[in-house]
């Protein structure tokens, strides 16, 4: 199964907010596989991939954050040259829109994470498998 569970956390742009979240998670022994933060003038959305997304969601919910679990998929960066381009072209041939994508560093190999509309998820992963793109099982 190439479905990766990602946590999306709504965060106001306040000083120390990100480090507060990190402290909270480390105090609760959450192992963080990847972090990505995209922000606007007054808020941002923090995307986390962790070892146990349900437990982490509970911790963040209890701390009063607005959290959502989203399905994403990922490909290794150095799988072969042009893996990013290949994914994008397969998806566009199948009329699948990419909502967002970002890179993570997992160990020595980096990865590209992709988010598509939830309704297109299965179609996207099937098309990629058919095209021979190797999706990561986990980050």
């Amino acid at each position, binding site marked *: 199964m190439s479905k990766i569970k990602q946590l999306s956390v709504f965060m106001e742009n306040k000083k120390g907010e990100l480090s507060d979240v990190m402290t909270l998670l480390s105090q609760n022994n959450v192992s963080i596989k990847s972090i990505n933060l995209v922000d*606007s003038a007054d*808020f941002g959305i923090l995307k986390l991939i962790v070892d146990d997304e349900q437990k982490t969601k509970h911790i963040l919910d209890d701390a*009063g954050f607005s959290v959502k679990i989203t399905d994403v998929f990922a490909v290794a960066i150095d799988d072969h040259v042009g893996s990013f381009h290949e994914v994008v072209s397969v998806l566009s041939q199948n009329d699948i829109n990419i909502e967002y994508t970002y890179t993570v560093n997992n160990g020595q190999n980096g990865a590209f994470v992709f988010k598509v509309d939830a309704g297109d998820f299965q179609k996207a992963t099937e098309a990629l498998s058919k095209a021979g793109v190797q999706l990561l099982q986990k980050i």
Partner: protein
Amino acid sequence: MIWNKIESSPRETIEQLQLSRLKDTVQRVYALTPFYRHKFEQTGIKPEDIASLKDIKKLPFTTKKDLRAHYPFGLFTVPMSEVVRIHSSSGTTGKPTVVGYTRSDMEVWDEVMARVFTMAGTTAEDIVHNGYGYGLFTGGLGMHNGAQKVGATIVPASSGFTERQLMLMKDFGATILAVTPSFALHMAEVAKKAGPDYLKDYKLKAGIFGAEPTSKGLKEEVSKAWGIDYHEVYGLSEIIGPGVACSCKKSDLLHVFEDHFFVEIIDPATGEEVPEGQRGELVITPLTKQALPLLRYRTGDITSITKEPCRCGRTMLRMESIVGRTDDMLIIGGVNVYPSQIEHVISNAYGVTLNYQIIADKKGYLDKLEIHIEVSDEIVCDNVAQMENIKKSIQAALLSNLYINATVRLVEPRSIERSMGKAVRIIDKRKSDE
């Protein structure tokens, strides 16, 4: 169905009746209430100066403060031997306001409440479940009197004990429900536990709801949850209790029983009348009250009126559901705004909650409005651009619907300061500079 033919009489007939009753009321307070006589003398007004309905503008206003200052019976114009009933409004600060009724006042109250029940289609065949509290509060007994006047069967359930009320409604086959809208919704939530087809156990066809400000969304929810027509009743104890106005089957607006209550809409800041259709403070002069006649009572409620004919056949003017209180009104760059209007815009937005805070401030000479809104417990999208769009669409709706330029800020759940469990709605930083 119309209870009294005056409700659909030509406007000239209604206005003639109003004028003669207004003259009587003015004579009465001038002769019997030292408080009013003193005010007349101060401004040099004589009862004879009231020759047309327009002349009402010459009369002084009365406020809740005046009622409190004369606690408990200081403004009564009859001896206590003629007072047959006392009611009182809950005073959240200090003394409550006390009102009294003569036998004739009680008849007027029964009459207007009979009109309310008839508007909701109530006849002698109906069973009225009255879940308003019986007591000093006018809701319970006001409803009771009206239902009795039309000859319906009343179940005086009073408030509380939801499960037991539902049992009585089912077993007695109630057809008309009279409760506060929030309680009606709570009852529906409990009733739904019986399963998705819970409505099969009930025979309700209409409800008469009032006593608290209600958004359109809440009304629709109540109406849907019980599968009934929603009739909104308006009133206040200072004037009579419930029964000043009620919405009919053809319109969401509330017909005012003008032969007993003369209404004006004024600009709360200047006291001047505003044009028909424009919002302002509702001012009521009861025209037939004996025990406690008041002139131009300032309700503090914000609404607008229209004299356009209604499809139900009634000719009495209609007011819209109360949109706010004068105490809550904000003036932003010369535009009057009520928190309820802002709340309405927020309630139509996606991905946010109704926990919000309005912060008014000054930037140089200009008013600046910022609205913080808590996002929903689970964010609806995890894409920053889409979240930005939610924020922008709220800003655009505030500008196009309310003509206000506000900066919206999306904030984390439960981050807005709470007071007694409720989010603190308004912070006016401009006030501290005055």
